């Protein structure tokens, strides 16, 4: 065959089909990516369900309907219901302040919002313990006021809020910065009040990013383990959230129970993932 640079005029170049164009190297890399994803992500997820149902529907149902497991599901939902709206409010406020205003300390605020991303959740848990615990800085005062923060719902909520604080702000902030302040200024010159500007101009512009951030925040709030395990005290049926309960069952050598509880967490995560993907398509 002619070397490529000696192709005569009129020589029919073979048509390039998609498959033919793919070199061996590309095929290898694609195969590797698919293989690793199956091995490290899909297989463990499937295995959760395989193990959860290994002794049939009845055992699975009994494990889910176990009072301690039901309580863990309820507690985890309660924490998410409290934390997510608070973080949505905080995220909007922080992003609004940073994107639409100039004030001293603005750069520091941006860094502060990011801190929970870079600190290990368990450190956050320990900090809260040292601050609010019985021997902690605020301990005597809290005890005098008869307020139980550690090893109770408030502690779990506080730590979860800390860990999930950046999610909404980080999603909304770049969008607000890209949009600038012209639309808000236009609304003001047309006579809108501060609340009307927010409600009718700012909020509709960020709604998809906001929902996206809220979904990510929910997924993280439901799955948080490290920080919560320090401050919850692991009291079965009282302060045990779903991730902590999974560990507890596993340590009890109740594998089916652990995997059954884990399967509910997995379903929540998968639903969040589907919503997130749908939202990404809308943006």
């Amino acid at each position, binding site marked *: 065959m002619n070397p490529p640079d000696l192709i005569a005029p009129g020589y029919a170049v073979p048509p390039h089909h998609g498959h033919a164009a793919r070199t061996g190297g590309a095929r290898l890399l694609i195969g590797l990516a698919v293989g690793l994803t199956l091995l490290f992500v899909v297989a463990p997820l499937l295995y959760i369900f395989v193990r959860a149902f290994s002794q049939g529907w009845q055992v699975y149902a009994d494990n889910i309907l176990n009072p301690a497991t039901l309580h863990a599901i309820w507690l985890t939902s309660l924490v998410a219901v409290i934390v997510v709206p608070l973080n949505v409010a905080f995220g909007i406020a922080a992003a609004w302040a940073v994107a639409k205003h100039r004030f001293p300390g603005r750069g520091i605020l941006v860094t502060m919002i990011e801190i929970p991303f870079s600190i290990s959740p368990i450190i956050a848990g320990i900090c809260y313990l040292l601050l609010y615990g019985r021997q902690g800085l605020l301990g005597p005062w809290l005890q005098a006021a008869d307020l139980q923060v550690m090893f109770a719902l408030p502690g779990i909520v506080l730590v979860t809020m800390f860990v999930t604080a950046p999610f909404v702000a980080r999603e909304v902030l770049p969008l607000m910065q890209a949009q600038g302040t012209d639309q808000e*200024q*236009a*609304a*003001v010159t*047309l006579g809108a009040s501060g609340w009307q500007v927010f409600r*009718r101009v700012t909020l509709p512009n960020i709604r998809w990013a906001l929902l996206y951030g809220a979904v990510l925040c929910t997924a993280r709030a439901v799955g948080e383990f490290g920080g919560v395990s320090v401050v919850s005290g692991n009291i079965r049926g009282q302060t045990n959230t779903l991730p902590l309960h999974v560990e507890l069952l596993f340590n009890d050598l109740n594998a089916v129970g652990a995997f059954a509880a884990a399967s509910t967490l997995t379903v929540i995560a998968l639903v969040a993932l589907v919503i997130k993907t749908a939202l990404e398509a809308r943006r």
Partner: protein
Amino acid sequence: MSITITGMTKRFGQTDVLRGIDLSVAEGELMALLGPSGSGKTTLLKIVAGLEWPDVGGLQVGGQDWLQLAARDRRIGFVFQHYALFPHMSVRDNIAFGLSVRPRAKRPGRAQIAARVDDLLDFLQIAPLADRYPAQLSGGQRQRVALGRALAIQPRVLLLDEPFGALDAAIRRDLRRWLRGVHEATGSTTIFVTHDQEEAFELADRVVVMGEGRIEQIGHADEIHDHPATPFVARFMGATTVLPVTLQAGRALGAGLDLTALPRRALPDGPARLFARPADIRVQPDPNGPWRIDTLSSTGAELRLLLSHPDLPAAEAQMPRRGAPSLARGSAVTLRLEAGSVFSDHRPLPAVPVTPLRKELFK
């Protein structure tokens, strides 16, 4: 409403954006703020709108102190350079916005708002676009919607920031004429900001030329074109050639220059600078002339020449190609100035007005 601005200064960090602005705009006047970017024209416009606040100065509109009034209470129509339409609202809702955010007691009824929007849609010739969203409109259409949204609240003053800045040349010309028509129909006092001379002169009753935070000149097109008040205005109006001359009894004299066409001026004797536009420099072939043609290029309709002189800065000339004398690169020529502005180098230092600080009066 008439607008009176007095002694206004504004500084952003280390930069003086406005350095003492005094300006009056008459009721019903259409005024242009013309200047290069960084001249402070947009800042001045935003101060009138209430979107920026001056450090010092006064702003009276229709006899009312507007520095005591928040932007939302001034009832102005502001058209942003990039329109700032609300992307999630239809054209109709965009235009209705200003009416629909009024407090309940002052808000017109739903039907009244709809009727007002319909009137505006007809007036601006965009009725077929009423239910579209901003992303579905062309630049010129967005411009009209932005103007409709501003006019809906029956503004006391209409302010436009680079209204044609983001449009093609052909659409600009159409919209310019159309905006003039809108101004005549509404009769509202209007200020617009532009960096385009042609736009300012064609559209405005009076033009304010701004440079580096100061007003350099206020006047009509011919006035500013023929008699620039400062070297800055002369340069901004296209004088690219600056030559040293000597003033004697009001006449400018320069080696190698025929300046007899320039009128006598009441300026002190001594060194001065002559500012000239390329089209005002006549090039005459002369084997003994001190100037040389360095480059010669043709745009078809016009010839453009760069000229050099052993002792003087370079000069730039331009003439219609038809009827031009035969010229070639390297040939010797003399220059005759048909027009130009002369500024004495012995300019008395301008008196700096000392304005007492009255910050406590402002927010």
